[in-house]
């Protein structure tokens, strides 16, 4: 009787602690990020991976991976890609990327339209 009581008490404490840490560690994210954060950091470091062509390549991979796994790509990624495409001289692809951001995130509409206008105005 005594041994059984201790067993249940221990088990429930372990379960409680397990659930507590479970909440911290295995949270499902809303969006797919890939290596976008590193690319953002790289943008500011000329000597270290801010090369637009390399960024376009990597961002395309991030987007493809997200699409293949049925996840929504994180806010801003298509805009960042468009920005990099513009820097490589491919304004047509840039506008396409910007339009995609508007589709995914209507909140971006005003700012994205401003960026599209500045591309077309050149």
């Amino acid at each position: 009787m005594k041994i059984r009581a201790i067993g249940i008490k221990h088990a429930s404490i372990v379960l409680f602690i397990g659930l507590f840490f479970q909440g911290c560690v295995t949270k499902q994210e809303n969006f797919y990020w890939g290596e976008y954060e590193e690319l953002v950091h790289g943008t500011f470091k000329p000597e270290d991976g801010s090369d637009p062509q390399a960024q376009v390549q990597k961002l395309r991979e991030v987007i493809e991976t997200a699409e293949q796994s049925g996840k929504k790509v994180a806010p801003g990624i298509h805009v960042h890609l468009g920005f990099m495409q513009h820097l490589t001289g491919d304004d047509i692809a840039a506008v396409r990327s910007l339009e995609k951001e508007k589709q995914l995130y209507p909140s971006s509409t005003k700012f994205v339209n401003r960026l599209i206008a500045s591309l077309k105005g050149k």
Partner: protein
Amino acid sequence: MRYLIILTLAQLLNACVTTPKDRSKFKEMMPTSILVLPPANHSPDVSATQTYLSVISRPMAEQGFYIFPVAVVDSYFKENGLSTPAEIHNVPLEKLREVFNADAVFYPTIEEWGSSYELVASTTRVRISAKLLDTRTGSLLWSGDQVRVKSDSSSEGGLAGMLIGAAISQIINDSTDQSKELARQGSYLMIQHSEQGFLKGPLDKKSMSGQKSDVSNTESRKAAK
């Protein structure tokens, strides 16, 4: 076993004992989109600004908000003649609303950043303060302060190692990485803390007000008039 229980209870109590933050204005205005401005920097490390910008978007977006792409926004400000965070922080809210149509603007400040070295020990401290303003009314939706500290008394090579040039550049690199990691942890804590952080936003899948499509609050507020 007893120690583990006490530790867990202490963590839970810690969350209960701090003064709960008044987030009624946040709830009332509930932004959908947030413009994160480059942080003001009170530390001697000029690279802190860019490092911070690269870690703040994810915890904030994951809390359920549209976050404008920080590198593109930074570039946009520079192209329009605003190069310092001080200048950017001084732009009137109406102007920011006109350009970005953001529901809220996040103003971060780096209070402390980087590592200090004493003999064979090093301490890295990152402290960030920030406020969130509603663009339509200018009201304060949220403000906060977060510090993360890491002490390391096990530096490689000990005293002898620290006197060698190669080791010093390793230390500098480690300092940057340490600060970045602390900034990342601090950002998650600041934004996602259940009582002190942001409320869950409309883009969070699990939130009550979560919807598949993302419609800006500003637009729906305009339509309601």
